[in-house]
């Protein structure tokens, strides 16, 4: 059967149409551009002999006479459990670390079928990151999917890099979408010490837009292979808004009717198909997903964060350089908080409540109200809490985080004021640091 065609009939945005026979839906093609470069393209619509392709490199400079070769297979990941560790690939899975292609790779179709819900288990383990605002206040649970809602300018990539370095996981997979080149270099250098357990799929802002769409699928297809081979995988995606925008671009070129602010009606399903790859497998490994979602205009009702919130199991808000303890929520934390240390949940609640009171006092103060002695204590507590707990630079194992929590409380309050149970006070209140009421 003929596999090579030389006449493109239509070019709109990143989408081209030509006439061809025997093409499978989803089939991958390679376009040989006039200047000698090539681009991959994927079949996204078939109608009689009209084949519509989304061109990964975009259609800039594509000529109607360019040669299109159909490759007879779907988009694939080159997988080899050991030799892809430490490697960096583009959105279409080609090495971009200057090293040769992966040897003895197995071809894995990306975007594979859904995990059977009947084979999932309720997760039980937490993933420690060393960051108190995560471990202590909103624990990340193995197999959880959590977004980091943020706005441009916040240090979300440094945060992800820290998690990649410190998190308890066997394999870390980074999926970069629309990354600034500097950010890519930052990830590359920062994660270098952990190379042997890290894989990166990187799409930068200067790469063709459509390649961005492939990044999560590539990362998650690899994750699935490791997870079914008994490895605990942590997938870090940044930025899912760039991914959604790329889908929007293709949808517009396809003349699809947008549902909300230009985004296609299937945005929810598309995002969910990726996030739902997070899984804890009975008798085997797991996939956990942390994903940055930048909120255009700091608006959480924007379609991307909004649809994301409906899919994920809670969210972190990264605001003013810290993880906001109020809007942030790990919906699964109660599963693991009972198993860490008996004081974990009550201490967390007490500290948050006091911090909330501190916030209220600050408001009153700013409105010119007079404040009491106890209010002064709250203010001092809030300052120390922010400096020693909320600061993203703090790096402690959970046990130490909890101990620090008690210490901070004891620096400002009496056991009564902390409103914790007698038993816990007996067991954990620092004996030497009791201050007068």
């Amino acid at each position, binding site marked *: 059967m003929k596999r090579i065609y030389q006449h493109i009939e239509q070019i709109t945005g990143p989408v081209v149409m030509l006439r061809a026979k025997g093409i499978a839906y989803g089939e991958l093609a390679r376009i040989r551009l006039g200047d000698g470069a090539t681009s991959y393209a994927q079949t996204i619509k078939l*109608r009689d002999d009209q084949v519509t392709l989304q061109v990964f490199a975009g259609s800039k400079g594509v000529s109607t006479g360019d040669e299109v070769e159909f490759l007879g297979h779907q988009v694939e990941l080159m997988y080899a459990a050991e030799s892809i560790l430490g490697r960096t690939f583009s959105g279409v899975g080609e090495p971009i670390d200057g090293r040769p292609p992966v040897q003895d790779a197995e071809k894995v179709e990306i975007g594979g079928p859904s995990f059977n819900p009947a084979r999932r*288990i309720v997760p039980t383990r937490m993933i420690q990151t060393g960051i108190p605002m995560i471990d202590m206040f909103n624990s990340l649970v193995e197999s959880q999917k959590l977004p980091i809602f943020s706005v441009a300018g916040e240090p979300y990539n440094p945060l992800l890099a820290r998690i990649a370095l410190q998190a308890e996981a066997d394999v870390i997979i980074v999926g970069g979408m629309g990354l600034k080149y500097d950010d890519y270099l930052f990830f590359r250098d920062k994660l270098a010490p952990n190379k042997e357990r890290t894989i990166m799929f990187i799409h930068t802002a200067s790469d063709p837009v459509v390649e961005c769409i492939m990044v999560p699928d590539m990362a998650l297809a690899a994750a699935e292979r490791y997870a079914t081979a008994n490895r605990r995988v942590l997938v870090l995606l940044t930025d899912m808004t760039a991914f959604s925008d790329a889908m929007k671009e293709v949808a517009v070129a396809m003349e699809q009717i947008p*549902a909300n602010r230009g985004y296609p009606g299937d945005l929810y399903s598309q995002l969910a198909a990726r996030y739902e790859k997070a899984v804890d497998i009975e008798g085997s490994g797991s996939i956990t997903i942390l994903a940055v979602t930048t909120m255009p205009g700091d608006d959480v009702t924007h379609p991307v964060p909004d649809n994301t919130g409906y899919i994920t199991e809670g969210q972190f808000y990264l605001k003013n350089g810290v993880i906001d303890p109020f809007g942030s929520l790990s919906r699964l934390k109660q599963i693991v908080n009972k198993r860490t240390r008996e004081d974990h949940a009550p201490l967390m609640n007490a500290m948050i409540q006091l911090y909330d009171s501190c916030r209220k006092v600050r408001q009153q103060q700013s409105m010119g109200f007079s404040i009491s002695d106890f209010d002064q204590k709250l203010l001092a507590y809030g300052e120390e809490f922010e400096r020693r707990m909320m600061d993203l630079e703090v790096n402690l194992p959970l046990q130490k985080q909890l101990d620090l929590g008690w210490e901070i409380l004891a620096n400002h309050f009496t056991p009564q004021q902390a409103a914790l149970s007698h038993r816990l006070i007996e067991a954990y209140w620092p004996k030497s640091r009791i201050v007068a009421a």
Partner: protein
Amino acid sequence: MSKSNAVVVGVNGNMVSARFTGNVRMNAVAYIALPAPAGQDVVRLKAEIIRVRGEECDMQVFEDTRGIRIGDPVEITEHLLAIELGPGLLGMVYDGLGNPLEELAQKTGFFLKRGTYLPTLARDRKWHFKPCAHVGDKLQAGHGLGTVPEGVFTHRIMVPFGLVGAGEVLEVAPAGEYPVDHPIGKVRSLATGRTHEVSMMQIWPVKKPITAYAERLLPSRPLTTRIRIVDTFFPVAEGGTACIPGPFGSGKTVFQQSVSRYADADVVIVAACGERAGEVVETLREFPELVDPRTGRSLMERTIIICNTSSMPVAAREASVYTAVTMAEYYRQMGLRVLVLADSTSRWAQALREMSGRLEEIPGEEAFPAYLGSLIAAFYERGGIVRLADPNLGAAQGSTTIIGTVSPAGGNFEEPVTQSTLAVVGCFLGLTYARSYAKRFPAISPLDSWSKYLDSLKPALEELYAPGWVAEVRALQRFYREGQRIGDQMKVVGEEELSVDELVHFLKSELFDAVFLQQNAYDEVDAGPSTVRTAFALKLARSVLEHDFGFVSKDQARERLLDLTSAMRNWNLAADGSPEYERFLSEIRGALLPRDGAGRKNSPSNVSTARKIQS
């Protein structure tokens, strides 16, 4: 199997177009055959015809369509999209099309494999059939032929729902053990003369309501959910409908999970429609361990889970709510009270939107199809309470109650799915971001929600709780609203501007919110108090609201009412008859003792809150 009668001419996402010969039926099932790699079986992908134009039909495919080519053969069947109904549905977990997920896992492992379909009802299991009809009986659709025990229920084997007019029983099998597909009788239609062979299993098209009952009745009884704010302020009727719209994270799923445990229904069908798989797993793993206090058996025995989560094929998501409600109608035909919990109907609506877009239909608001409203209305219309047709059952009734969640974009209720749903349901439980952010769960707005059933169920509610109940609830609603209004006013003008009296009213409404309207779904006791306890708790709360505390200062009011709030919250968490229960109760009662003369002097300012709440 009939041979191919169509070929693929177009593929666009999960929509496939085919050119056919002969006749096709709208909503018929078709199979697209994928050419198999050497040595493998042909993969047949299930689809449903959703549009016919000339010689071409468009199908929504219930699977991933990758790999389909122009010219691939399509086999179009005569059958509408249907499911098998019979003993063995209870306790099972199905995908949106009725494939048992556990059995699929045994066959295909961790991942779902497209084109793998299994019968809804196991064929290797035998059921003990006991006939109740006799040869020569003239019966109609839905009349009993016999029974089999299914868990705690007597499962009625009925004359097929599709029989038109009366039929004469030609044969009935003797009592014995049979698999579901074994013939157990023959019925001849008097109208057509055709003889129907009957087994314990029927196949019914999911998009067609089962109407083999005598008549539909007006809902007249409440369906208790054991969620206090619902059962008192916004009751749901047995055979009625309710919706729960709310932004993400506001507690829709936790609410549904709680109701699925505690609702006073015989059978609960949970449709996890386009939501997280993890949430279903919680139910899946917990229910077999939980004991249903009504029956003493595992909760799973009264539950069916239809699980078409967000990463499973979108078209099957659309089918899943119909699969759920069809199973509900089936058990309703046996005189059971069935509850359908659909989470989330917005995902179903989105599936419709995706397909409508592919069909290039003229879009309505937010690109939803123009017919969205009528489909939503038709879905909720499948709820209802009915009198059964079988004369042997006397006045027996069965019911389907539907409670659906809605996930509005941006949490804004002014969107098409919420609005279309509000137009048809009897009860609106609106969740607000403000309440969930403040951790006031369930975050059902006591001010904006409504239930048409509070008035229409008055006689039944007063019989269940107490005479004068509805008026009392209305009075509490007014009291709460006024208290919150004062609170809002306070935010603007500051506390100084309020009288002690006004502040006390506000604080009492906050107390009522905290100790009655809020409920902790994760606490064993608080999650599901009995009707008796709820009625008692309401009375207790009311006596607090009506009590003249004679507070002399705002600080005193604040402090005393906070203490009381804490005692009442603790009482909520104390198990019936436990020492804590008694301890906190006497603490509460202690706070309500008539005051000595000292406090009474400033009573003028307390008159209005101390007055009996006007009924």
